[in-house]
């Protein structure tokens, strides 16, 4: 059944391409977020639930606000290059 095999091969290829595109898109999104001082929220939630299952993690908005403050707050944040 060469046709069927070809069809399934094409489907596999489409899946591969889609996965690669999704992965790439996630990477670009994460990079763009980190460039403006917003680290990955999903990574934080994964970490928080794994290490502190007893405490609820920060919600998305609180996480965003926290990093917004930190980027320009006292300490090492806020350095921009010339």
């Amino acid at each position, binding site marked *: 059944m060469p046709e069927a095999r070809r069809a399934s091969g094409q489907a596999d290829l489409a899946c591969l391409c889609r996965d690669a595109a999704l992965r790439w898109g996630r990477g670009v999104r994460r990079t*763009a977020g*980190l460039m*403006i001082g917003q680290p990955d929220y999903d990574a934080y939630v*994964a970490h928080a639930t794994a290490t502190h299952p007893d405490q609820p993690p920060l919600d998305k908005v609180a996480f965003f606000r926290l990093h*917004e403050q930190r980027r320009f*707050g006292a300490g090492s944040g806020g*350095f921009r290059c010339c």
Partner: protein
Amino acid sequence: MGKLSTPIIFGAIAVLGAVSLAIIALHQGESISAVWMVVAAVCTYAIAYRFYARYLAGKVMQLNPARLTPAVRRNDGLDYVPTPRNVLFGHHFAAIAGAGPLVGPVLAAQMGYLPGVLWILVGAVLAGAVQDMMVLFMSTRRDGKSLGDMIRTEMGNIPGVIAQVGVLMIMVIILAVLALVVVKALAESPWGTFTVAATIPIAIFMGLYTRFLRPGRVGEVSVIGVVLLILAIIGGGHVAADPVWGPAFTLTGPTLAILMMAYGFIASVIPVWLLLAPRDYLSTFLKIGAILALAIGILIVRPHLQMPAITPFIDGTGPVFAGALFPFLFITIACGAVSGFHALISSGTTPKLLENENQIPLIGYGAMLCESFVAVMALIAATVLDPAVYFAMNSPAAIIGTDAASAAAAVAQWGFHITPGELEQLARDVGEHSILSRAGGAPTLAVGMAHILSNVIGGKAMMAFWYHFAILFEALFILTTVDAGTRVCRFMIQDLLGVAVPKMRETKSWGANVVATALTVALWGYFLYTGVIDPLGGINSLWPLFGIANQMLAAVALILGTVVLFKMKRERFAWVAIVPTVWLLVCTLTAGFQKLFHPDIRIGFLSHARKYQEALGAGDLLAPAKTAGDMHRIIVNDYVNSALTAGFLFVVLTMVVYGVLACLKAWRNNRPTVREYPEAHDLTPGDEAADIARA
């Protein structure tokens, strides 16, 4: 891909790079394609990254992939987060890429493209990237400590405090110079002024949007912001042509300087979410987009370099900045070859996000190579312009006069020919009243970018759009640096004043906030204002001061690197840090000394002051002074600049002394004395906290 293919591939890259370098170095006569410069640069980077960065990682630093990085050890999901290396690379590159590598090479183009490109390549490979990588390495091994903290723990408290004061002085001069670049780009340009002013309401709208309408949706709000920015660029053309609004947005340099100070003060006092953060999104994404666009544009258009390889101005008589090739070329191109400011970034957030030590070469060394490539592109953008246009744009009015005819006559004397009509036509093409004496780098880069990008999209009709796009992109991220830098300086000043008045330390206190911010703005505002009213354009004297400061910070970071290698008992490899340190010291000390004592009044602050003093004694007035009070102010300004230069020299010389002493002490000791966070198997259980406290 066997063992054989690597030498063959890299051998071929080396040959190609050498051929390209030979072509751009030995070429004479007609123009030459910029592609040769791109190829030479890329081959140089590939060889350096494959061999030198690997040598640094393996032999010098002995990076250990099994050793836990702070991100892994202290993973809290917030500050310390192990991050995929490509993501971290993007973050680090966005943090180190600024206006510096765009402006410096444009100014240095007055000596021809060859000296500039050679210094950008050699400097980045042997000094800049080494510095970034070493600081990242040291900070990673020390729990992500800042440069100042590392100097304190490895070299002592006194050098730590001296370095801290040095960083503050450098920040002030950087903010002043960058603000000056924006003022020079916007003065008498209603189109540019309108678009840059429009970013303020756009950013405030974005801030309110992420605060109240759709909290935290930075992606969509950034898209909205970029669309509004493009509308602002298009609208700016209509505003400039309007009989009422055009003149309203046509502002002089001094007015813009005062507006900048007021803006800088307000922006850093109000809550960050309202103006600073949203503006940061726009500037970051626009910066990355514009850099990519320029790279693609250069590859598609493959423009020809019009500037000679070397001009007669290497002797120091050039109109753009004063001073001979040595040492001033190496000061003028700071970022792009080696930038001390990167040491603050490489010891900031990046080490807290690093997944594994074996990624230090990619992040530390690799990102700097990309920054260096940005500098090469800026040099290309400046040198694809007709040299006559370049010199008409970058020479002060005091030298070329104020109209197209006098400018064309002046550049003809230097051997570059253009008709006054052509100069006026170019100004019309880019939508400006005049392109004469627009020093500061930004307008020249913008004309160069418009020249390249309009060849890709839109042709001549779009040239004005691309010009103002480039101006907006530079002004936007410079202003973000100015706002954020003002805040950083404010915290530093609060910290320093807190020693005497503990109340000043309270970062939440409104009184302390306003006082420290006002002080910061007054400091950089002073240098900005004196630069704006300087008849030679300000950039002439301030940019070298900035270069000296930045290179000195790099020297300080590399001295720390040397000390750390000695303390690790790896002194036989310390030359990797010592060689660039010595070169930077030679350049900055010579340049600093010349800025103080050079008999030419265009270079030496003290001889300039003396000339004005003598004129004042004889009852004469020298331009731009109109009264005896102006004369006094100019003299005071010269002494302030001299004091600042002397301050930089003092900082770097004391750091050298402390560095040598620390190296000798470590050398005499027969055991490593470095204060790294220990390897995991060296720790006794439960002892981690004590070790952090000790380190």
